[in-house]
């Protein structure tokens, strides 16, 4: 959203996230970044490039290869009054720290009767599409969205990459930020004064009449592409970007479905027990009498992610499948 009077510059998702980190480090002494290769290497995805030089080794800390250890340290630092940003290289490795995230970070506030808060921010890269094969291509943000006690965010746009970190740091409870690996190079205009964004609402990215396409993160560009294809055939799809996976802003997407009467959910997780199943259930609960067709889902095939590129592409949600599902619900 630009206007003639707002200065805008071309930037990338990666740079926007870096600017957010830089601003957070500069403005609050308690904030520090911790993770594997975030310092000297500049981050596995180059997000923290240059930050070590700018802020020094106390504020940008390289950790050993021990997710359970450094996430636990982050929990401890947060309890002690710091504002750590823990970077787990990818969601795949977060499995090694699942106990720290679920049983400590998410639960200590409850178990301590409110005496202990864990103002921890964990950033993770997620998703597939770069031929990293079965163990390095998971989309588990749906799993994390299942856990009470934490918030889960999925920035898909430059504004969100720039603006979600600040409010996440201000939250007294743990916040997980999922950055889809294919989005880092996404480029576009961003307002010079882009700042904090709301971290509670889903947003309608494209208005439409005939059906609602609901997605988030790395699947959002594919969903928007599918909407363009459908528009050429006179089917106007409304696209909702969830942005916040927990707590889900169901008010926004159910309002949309009540207007369009048809919904397709696009989720890179495996279909069974995925976040899309939760979205679909809420739509059925809240919009049953407005539905003209069953809610369909476009998800990854239920296989360990293949390594060969053509097989990986076949396993992931693609615009063609989204278009086909949309046509099926429109009839």
């Amino acid at each position: 959203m630009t206007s003639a009077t707002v200065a805008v510059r071309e930037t990338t998702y990666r740079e926007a996230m870096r600017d957010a980190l830089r601003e957070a480090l500069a403005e609050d002494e308690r904030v520090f970044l911790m993770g594997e290769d975030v310092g000297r290497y500049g981050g596995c995805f180059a997000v923290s490039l240059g930050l070590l030089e700018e802020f020094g080794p106390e504020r940008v800390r390289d950790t050993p290869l021990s997710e359970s250890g450094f996430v636990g340290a982050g929990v401890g630092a947060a309890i002690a009054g710091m504002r750590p940003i823990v970077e787990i290289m990818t969601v795949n490795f977060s499995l090694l720290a699942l106990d720290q995230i679920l049983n400590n970070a998410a639960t200590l506030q409850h178990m301590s009767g409110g005496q202990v808060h864990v103002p921890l921010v964990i950033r993770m890269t997620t998703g597939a599409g770069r031929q990293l094969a079965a163990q390095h291509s998971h989309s588990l943000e749906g799993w994390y969205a299942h856990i009470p006690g934490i918030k889960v965010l999925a920035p898909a746009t430059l504004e969100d990459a720039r603006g979600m970190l600040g409010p996440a740091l201000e939250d007294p409870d743990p916040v997980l930020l999922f950055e889809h690996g294919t989005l880092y190079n996404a480029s576009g205009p961003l307002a010079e004064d882009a700042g904090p964004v709301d971290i509670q609402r889903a947003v309608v990215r494209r208005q439409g009449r005939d059906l609602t396409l609901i997605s988030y993160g790395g699947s959002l560009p594919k969903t928007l592409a599918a909407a363009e294809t459908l528009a050429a055939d006179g089917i106007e799809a409304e696209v909702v970007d969830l942005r916040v996976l927990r707590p889900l802003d169901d008010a926004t997407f159910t309002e949309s479905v009540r207007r369009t009467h048809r919904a397709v959910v696009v989720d890179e997780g495996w279909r069974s027990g995925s976040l899309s199943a939760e979205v679909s259930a809420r739509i059925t609960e809240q919009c049953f009498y407005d539905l003209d067709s069953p809610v369909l889902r476009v998800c990854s095939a239920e296989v360990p992610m293949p390594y060969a590129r053509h097989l990986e592409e076949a396993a992931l949600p693609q615009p063609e499948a989204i278009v086909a599902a949309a046509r099926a619900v429109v009839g």
Partner: protein
Amino acid sequence: MADFTMPSLGADMDAGTLVEWLVREGDTVHRGDPMAVVDTDKSAIEVESFDDGVVERFLVEPGARVAVGTTLASLAPLDDAPTKVPAARSPGAATTPAAGPPARHGHHRRPHTPRAAPPPLRHHAAELGVDLTTLAGSGPDGTVTRADVDRAARASAPSPLPLQRRAEPGAATRPRPRRASPYARRLAAELGVDLASVTEVGGDGAVHAAQVLGAASTAVAPVPPPPPAATSPARVEPPPKPRGTGASRTTIAALMSRAKREIPHYYVATTVDLGPLTEWLRRSNRERGVSERILPAAALLKATALTARDHPELNGFWVDRAFVPGDDVHLGVAVHVRGGALVAPAIHRTADLTLPEVMAALRDLVARARSGRLRRAELADPTLTVTDLGDQGVEEVIGVIYPPQVALLGIGRVVERPWAMDGLIGVRPTVRLTLSGDHRATDGAAGARFLNTLEERLQHPEAL
């Protein structure tokens, strides 16, 4: 017993070349097993056997090009059980099926564990509910083939005997329950459409909103009263032909009855001086080609659309005891189709179109309405309908609102009337506008304000 012939592998194929045989004379083949490779001039294709049998004799040699339908090999019928293991291929096998205790060196059936079959075949077997471990394969070395799996699935399928029906009184004539989406049911109830009378269904066999809306919109036009004393009393008139099809007549009757029954209509009317508009149109049409000429009807639509934007309380729907504003102004245009039907499809986002665009949209919409080529969204989306019967000659139209909309604008004929202007009497082209309003959503004051705004806009046609 069919022999194996050269098949037609494409609409334009009349001959093919046998490239190679994939079986040998004497082999047992089952339906679906690859038999030969055939070149069709476009590509080489593996051809499967269409029958079970034993390959007797090859009648065509590889390399030969033969017409479609030529017998390539003769097949003898299978006389053994399907699970017979081809003894000839197993090394050291007994030549007769084991009748007594199995010979130590005789062929024994290798148990086929799921590991032995390739993943696609395991998936296929799982889909068909076939347990691979129970099968003996007919492929080379006893491997299980896809044909084996298919055969086993067919063998275990329940026989297609007709189910015994309990004799229920009227069971034969009771109609199958019609499936309809929840939204379609709601719409049908709101619009007074009898679901049982909706004959169209969506691709999945269920009734969806589009079919209900289609049934509600196609309608029979009310028969205009015949001109008085047009015929001499002695002439015998043939009875008027009933108009419209059975189903649409029922639904429009239901729709209009419901509208009159449930919507407390109020009416406000005004006579508007159309002089400025007709003058302005004359002048600007002189500069346009005939195909770009703008009719007063289009200008009235544009003015109404802008007015609807000014008065959003009249642009929307009465649903579940509350007013829901439309997301934009999509004016419904009542179109009379020759033969008596009436439809009121929408021009989307009317207020955003330029006047020439409204004219073009109107012409296009009317043409498609008359040839039955309207789009689903056009039937579903009107937020406010305009019925312009000026061409039919009536001076005033007091119309019935199309539920769930909350208003309808009726436009009469342009009539030259005496008009007071600046203290003098003159003659002006005038038109009577009547707004029918749903009193649950708005009251007469709102309707009056709407007409005032519309009148104001019509006095400044250059702003349309």
